[in-house]
């Protein structure tokens, strides 16, 4: 028990240290722009279709499950509000971050883990190349940028999916559905006069992207013992990322909506 706890604190300590080291190097991002662009492609474009597909069905599920209950009370007209708030506040950011943890996070851990066990990280150190600036910073920045962008897509497609169910299963017309969506997202504020439910969701996504990529990179660079070590690092990256996303989600939701 005590060894599990000490391992947990050692892991968290390493992840926090890595996060601080990355933050301290953000100023040198311009120098790494081509690496960041490459990572944006790897983290973003390659998972767009997954986010769109999952987002569509999540919106449909929310609409179906909630709409059937609302229709018992004759309140199915409110389905647009529920889908929009669910997608923008929670489902969009959380589902997108979970998809990224499973796809991009696992790939980051496997890639850096393979580099660790094949001595490529040692080679960088021997050449006095800053591994955090060269390897970790581009991956973390790319994930933190891409996660909100994908969340916008996930939110939008989820709302569309909810609309399809509203019309086909709940007999709620499209115009009524979209009116209630827009009305529910009317609490506008900073930044850019975005609805609060949208910008808080995007902020959460930004944090989730950073958290999952730091955790995944930390698992990768600590990998040892060949292929088995890389497998363990990958598993640990996905597991820890999803736990961290859920815990962080609670605290961010509490921070934004506990008023």
């Amino acid at each position, binding site marked *: 028990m005590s060894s599990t706890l000490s391992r947990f604190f050692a892991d968290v300590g390493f992840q926090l240290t890595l996060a601080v080291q990355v933050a301290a190097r953000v100023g040198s991002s311009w120098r790494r722009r081509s690496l960041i662009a490459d990572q944006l492609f790897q983290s973003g474009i390659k998972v767009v279709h997954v986010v769109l597909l999952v987002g569509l069905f999540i919106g449909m599920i929310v609409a179906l499950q909630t709409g059937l209950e609302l229709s018992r009370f004759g309140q199915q007209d409110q389905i647009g509000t529920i889908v929009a708030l669910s997608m923008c506040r929670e489902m969009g950011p959380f589902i997108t971050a979970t998809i990224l943890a499973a796809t991009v996070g696992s790939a980051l851990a496997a890639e850096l883990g393979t*580099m660790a066990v*094949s*001595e*490529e990280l*040692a*080679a960088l*150190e*021997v*050449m*006095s*190349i*800053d591994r955090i600036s*060269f390897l970790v910073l581009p991956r973390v920045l790319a994930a933190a940028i891409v996660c909100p962008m994908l969340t916008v897509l996930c939110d939008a497609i989820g709302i569309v999916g909810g609309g399809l169910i509203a019309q086909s299963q709940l007999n709620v017309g499209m115009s009524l559905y979209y009116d209630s969506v827009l009305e529910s997202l009317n609490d506008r504020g900073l930044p850019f006069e975005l609805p609060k439910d949208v910008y808080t969701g995007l902020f959460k996504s930004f944090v989730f992207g950073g958290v999952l990529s730091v955790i995944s990179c930390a698992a990768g660079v600590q990998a040892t013992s060949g292929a088995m070590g890389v497998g363990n690092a990958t598993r640990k990256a996905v597991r820890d990322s999803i736990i961290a996303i859920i815990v962080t989600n609670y605290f961010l939701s509490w921070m934004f909506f506990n008023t």
Partner: protein
Amino acid sequence: MSASVQTKRDVIIRYEDVHKAFGPKVVLAGFNLEVYRGEAFAIMGPSGTGKSVALRHVIGLLKPDRGVVSVDGRNMATIAREELRELRSRMGYVFQEAALLNWLTAGENVALPLRETTHMPDSEIREKVNAKLALVQVPDVYNKMPNELSGGMRKRVGLARALVTDPEIILYDEPTAGLDPEISSSINHLMRDLAQQLHVTSLIVTHHIGCVRTTADRVGLLDGGKLNFVSSPQEFIGSAEPRLVRFLGDKLD
């Protein structure tokens, strides 16, 4: 070379009573060695005896639990970060599996230390990289990815990367491991030629006697955490010492 070097006694790498353990496994236990400037010293020993561990202390990848490893008079365990960078820029390290970054071309791998640690213009870097690739006899691989290269070619590219900063010391970690005898022999001759042309100090970790014969001025056997039987390759191979005879047994066949 060895006679003139030894009379000067200009020690560039020194291990003094170095101890290193990983958990309960003791790897180095009173390891002592002096490597003279300009010589090629080979550390031999069975697999898992800590040869690579000894080598990694020289470039500061590992710190001893006890004892001192110094390079050019500077303690590698206590050296300041900036000084370590400067010292590392004077050393090249050839990894067992070459350790090339697989998303960069061979040329970009060789260029990496110059791009990342100097302000050299691109044209000059390109020129220097091409020169080093030619020096290690793979002039046409600049645009090839590491996975398109054979094991021997990857080793050569790894060697070119180690040479690109014009180091004074080259550390070789099993430079011929996993290669067939013909390619091993060509790598050995390349190492010897480079040492003669560039007047570098070489510290070589190997379990191939052919590598020692071709490249080393002196050799020692790492066994039980200590370096024993330090001598010339001829004396080493011809020794009647039972432990050496047992270790060298099938290697001499």
